[in-house]
């Protein structure tokens, strides 16, 4: 491995503007330019968070709703940027924050595989190689050549998950999507994640499914109110976390 760490989060703080009445137009910006402070508040979601994740680690982020787990994931994918601090990513990264982002309802499942995978930065040749695996994994069969708008929500999710999981990134960020599809498909996803873990991928996962986390992850990070409360072996962190929660 070239780099000692796959993900380095250094003293990252993130605050969002709390806008009570958002000035969208030029007129409002001009009229209210000096009253800005009274109209805009600040909500600090992450406070001076530092975290280092080694290549091949499987890390769970746990914590109650609103503690900043998803914000941290979004920062790692570069969808949003930290207010302070720095995040370094070493390796190709794929995020599964929201399944089926960018699916076009009128396109067929197959066309959407190409479009969706290209968003993850794959070339046509690379997608050609994977398209068989993706279709097989999704278990959509002949439906793959029907427009996506005709799919049931389960089929939609299965397709989206299959694309995302087959793009072969070195770092995988997953937000609460273990609960895709029926029991059978969930188990299949879980097995796939185990397989990815064995093949040395770095996985960061946000989830409330503590039992699956315990099985999958070696390390857990408990985030509370925008700060890291505990970082260590999954068993121990989950145990402490449950003590507070219950």
């Amino acid at each position, binding site marked *: 491995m070239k780099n000692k760490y796959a993900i380095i989060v250094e003293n990252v703080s993130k605050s*969002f*503007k709390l806008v009570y009445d958002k000035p*969208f*137009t*030029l*007129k409002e*910006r001009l009229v209210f330019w000096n009253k800005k402070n009274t109209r805009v508040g600040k909500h600090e979601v992450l406070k001076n968070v530092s975290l280092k994740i080694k290549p091949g680690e499987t890390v769970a982020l746990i914590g109650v709703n609103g503690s900043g787990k998803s914000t941290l994931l*979004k920062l790692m*994918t*570069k*969808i*949003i*940027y930290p207010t302070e601090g720095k995040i370094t990513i070493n390796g190709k*990264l794929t*995020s599964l*924050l*929201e399944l089926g*982002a*960018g699916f*076009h309802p*009128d396109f067929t499942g197959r066309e959407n595989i*190409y*479009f969706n*995978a*290209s*968003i*993850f*930065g*794959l*070339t*046509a040749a690379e*997608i050609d190689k994977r398209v068989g695996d993706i279709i097989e994994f999704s278990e959509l069969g002949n439906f793959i050549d029907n427009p996506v708008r005709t799919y049931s929500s389960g089929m939609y999710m299965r397709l989206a998950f299959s694309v995302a999981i087959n793009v072969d990134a070195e770092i995988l960020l997953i937000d609460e999507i273990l609960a895709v599809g029926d029991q059978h498909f969930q188990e299949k996803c879980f097995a796939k994640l185990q397989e990815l873990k064995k093949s040395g991928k770095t996985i960061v996962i946000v989830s409330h499914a503590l039992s699956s986390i315990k099985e999958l992850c070696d390390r857990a990070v408990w985030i509370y109110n925008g700060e890291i409360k505990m970082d260590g072996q999954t068993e121990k962190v989950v145990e402490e976390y449950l003590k507070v929660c219950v």
Partner: protein
Amino acid sequence: MMKELLNNLYAYRQLLKSNVQKEIRGKYKGSFLGVLWSFVNPLLMTLVYAIVFPLILKDTEPHYITYLVIAILPWNYFTTVISQGTTTILGNGGILKKVYFPREIFPISVNLSGVINFLISCLVMCLFLIFSGIGFSWVIIFFPFIVLLQFIIQQAIIFITSAVDVYVRDAEYIINFFVSMLFYATPILYSADMFAGSSIEWLIKINPIAIIINAYRDIFYYQTIPDMQMLGIVLLIGILLFYIGLKVFRKLEKGFAEEL
């Protein structure tokens, strides 16, 4: 910064390609003529001007309709790219909030799909040149250079406007107003000479779009070598503007997901 841009475009070339296809195919989805509209529209516009303006202007150019087509097609390319480009980030907000990929893909694919449409519509222009008897001269070898120049300038503009529009949504209306004003400050319906000696002559002289349109006319209609000195200056301005545009875009893109 340029290296980063090129690396991004190379890595995400498939996305760029499918996005350009989507822009071209998706635009006329559901219409009977489909992509043909990108010829028909400027042709209809030309037809209207060709009927009205000879009545207003006392003496027009001999092959007035060909004269018009040569200017209207690049102008149409310009306005389409500017108006679509300005709203492209806003329009794709849904996906920008969910997945990371280089954000510049959107403004660039608007410009690319525009240039493809423009080049296809140039075939129609060729028909006009043939049937009017004007024909072609060797000076059309300057054509790729002029197109590239127009491409750079438009890209620079929409880098800035697409990013600013996310923060201040009036941008698109202001831009549209400026574009329709610019139409009159650009010699499309008439020749630039008509303004010689008037108080707004300078406006046409410094208007880079006017310089570009004049260059198209020079190579196709008058069949002379375009004003290389002016084009050189426009190229320098274009490159500088492109650099500034990219810098502005890079600065503003960090807040896209939060502002959308």
